[in-house]
């Protein structure tokens, strides 16, 4: 079944066909207009029950069609139970009883005022998917679930929302929450490791609440640069920050602020003693462990995709010194001259679509594409002389290592090929633990 919602005129035609309305001088325009707002699955469900009822009585089918549009839009409304109740009432007491039962059932729904203003995830999923698709960054999946959070690839949103005064407000709230979760993935909430800070808090949940709040402050300011209308909605929903948090909000609103600044604010708060967090209506939760686990796997996958694409591009490039190679993916050259110039300058348009997506995803996860992904160190392996400047003061290794291993670079959050160099040395009589420590120091 197509996911596309049916337009009002299509619904009208389907209802007309089921209920023979044209022959009865009736128009399904109004019910069709009400049903148009529903997701396709619910539209089909309503049409299903209208059809079943019409087999018994077209009037009963009409009664369901007239009421279903407004009822089915209510969050948590049990459409199937409602329709069955109407059918049973018709079997027992005729059309009038069925109509009364359909009306009563709806009226008896718990907190009908709340239901009327509430909005379900199903009702906004399509528009949110389009909204998020238009934004920058990695494509995000949408799901509904008990927790409002993201792992960096999927956004989990509430099944329904009824916090705002009307349905439009709740739809806006959905948009704000989705945008905030998207911003967490887009603007680096998971690019720093919060564990060193989190473990110093007595209560991890409280710590995560504060981290979420501070990141919300930072991301709201970041969103205001490109999407000021959305940031205005966020500010209106939360109201002014409490006076004691206003300086922190201002500090995190600086353009150069990052997730590390949020962690720094947490550390300061921990030292002076943290109370409970304020909770804006668009509150989200964080699960950094899950997000960073996924991030690490994604970085390894994307790096592989990008490098394969670059190798293939070079293999088929007749001007490349490497040319076609015996191996499936020839090694990248030691120097950078065979890396496409446009990639060195950051322009990814020359890449095939999957590699371009991988490169953009890497840039999002690592705040840029690490040079060694575009220009590897030596014939397929890292060499000690390629050591990053930030590797610290270590002695240069001499001689060829006895073994090479891929190793995890914790700073980068990614695997590096042959990064670990293993040197074997014989433990001669007379060697002391101190001399072993010295050898270790010179080799690392």
């Amino acid at each position, binding site marked *: 079944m197509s996911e596309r*919602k049916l337009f009002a005129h299509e619904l009208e035609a389907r209802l007309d066909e089921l209920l023979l309305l044209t022959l009865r001088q009736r128009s399904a325009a109004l019910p069709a207009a009400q049903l148009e707002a529903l997701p396709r699955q619910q539209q089909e469900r309503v049409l299903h029950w209208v059809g079943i009822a019409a087999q018994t009585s077209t009037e009963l089918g009409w009664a369901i069609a007239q009421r279903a549009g407004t009822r089915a839009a209510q969050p948590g409304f049990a459409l199937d139970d409602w329709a069955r109740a109407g059918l049973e009432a018709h079997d027992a007491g005729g059309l009038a009883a069925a109509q009364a039962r359909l009306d009563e059932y709806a009226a008896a729904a718990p907190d009908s005022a709340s239901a009327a203003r509430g909005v379900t995830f199903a009702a906004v999923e399509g*528009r949110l998917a389009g909204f998020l698709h238009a*934004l920058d960054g990695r494509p995000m999946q949408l799901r509904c679930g008990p927790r409002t959070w993201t792992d960096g690839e999927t956004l989990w949103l509430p099944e329904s929302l009824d916090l705002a005064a009307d349905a439009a407000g709740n739809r806006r709230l959905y948009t704000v929450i989705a945008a905030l979760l998207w911003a967490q993935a887009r603007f680096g909430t998971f690019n720093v490791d919060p564990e060193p800070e989190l473990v110093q808090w007595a209560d991890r949940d409280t710590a995560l609440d504060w981290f979420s709040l501070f990141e919300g402050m930072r991301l709201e300011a970041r969103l205001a640069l490109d999407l000021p209308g959305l940031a205005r909605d966020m500010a209106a929903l939360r109201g002014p920050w409490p006076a004691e948090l206003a300086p922190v909000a201002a500090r995190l609103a600086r353009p150069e602020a990052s997730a590390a600044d949020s962690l720094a604010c947490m550390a300061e708060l921990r030292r002076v003693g943290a109370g409970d967090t304020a909770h804006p209506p668009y509150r989200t939760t964080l699960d950094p462990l899950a997000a960073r686990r996924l991030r690490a796997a994604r970085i390894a996958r994307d790096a592989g995709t990008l490098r394969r694409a670059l190798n293939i591009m070079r293999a088929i490039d007749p001007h490349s010194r490497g040319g076609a190679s015996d191996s499936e993916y020839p090694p990248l050259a030691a120097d950078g001259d065979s890396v496409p110039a446009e990639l060195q300058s950051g322009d990814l348009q020359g890449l095939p679509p999957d590699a371009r997506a991988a490169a953009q995803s890497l840039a999002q996860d690592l705040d840029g594409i690490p040079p060694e992904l575009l220009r590897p160190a030596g014939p397929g392996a890292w060499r000690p002389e390629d050591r990053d400047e930030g590797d610290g003061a270590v002695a240069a290794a001499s001689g060829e290592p006895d073994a090479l291993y891929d190793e995890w670079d914790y700073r980068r959050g990614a695997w590096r090929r042959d990064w670990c160099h293993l040197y074997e040395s014989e433990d001669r009589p007379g060697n002391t633990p101190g001399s072993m420590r010295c050898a270790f120091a010179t080799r690392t």
Partner: protein
Amino acid sequence: MTAPNSSARNDLRAVATPLVQIAKEPYYHATGDELEVFAAAAASGLPVMLKGPTGCGKTRFVEHMAWRLKRPLVTVACHDDLTTSDLVGRYLIVGDETVWMDGPLTAAVRGGAICYLDEIVEARKDTTVVIHPLTDSRRALPVEKRGEYIEAPPDFMLVISYNPGYQSVLKEMKPSTRQRFVALDFDYPQAEVEAGIVAHEGGVDADTATKLVRLGTLTRKLKGAGLDEGAGTRLLVHAAQLIAKGMAPVTACTAAIARPLADEPDTRHALDDLIAAVF
């Protein structure tokens, strides 16, 4: 056949193709070497093909070049009912007489004008074949119905445009046609340049223009995900013009951008959300 009387001459004037000489410089912001390439093609008598998404400035570019080269411009919006007679000309009954009426292509050839066939792939394939003799070394237009063979003057230039993005396979341009043209690729300008265009053409301030361009950029990412094309510069200028007339930005963008782009409810709502987010 006799010369038409004065009443018939008035009727003919009403349907004749005007050769418009553009007096005032049409605003155009060059984004590459398109001005030089077009001018060189014009000097060499070569036809030009403009490729690019809708609303990115192809038509404006041709208007600008017609002004710059001081040549009349004849524009034909092609459609799938466009016949050879529509382009070349036909006999008309005027009063009690039958008279020949040049079509826009013939009029442009005779007048040494630039003939711009907009969205050429929309026209029937047999129609496009009529331009072939004009696009090779012959540079001539055979008018079969009159048994006439019109050699194009040096100032005549043929320009076609099409949008490779959303044309169907059935409407692909034939290689025998496309390999006759010097081609220029068009795309939406860089954001800063596009904002300048929107501000200039729409009469809005730089901040509003920047927001409109940001919105346009967002909608272009929905290409293939609900939209056949994102908002072109032309739509952004339309929205800017409404805003300049005092309309609220959200209302203006909804009317000038969101509604023309989409009918599907979810896509329309997504566009509404983007507009609200940007403004």
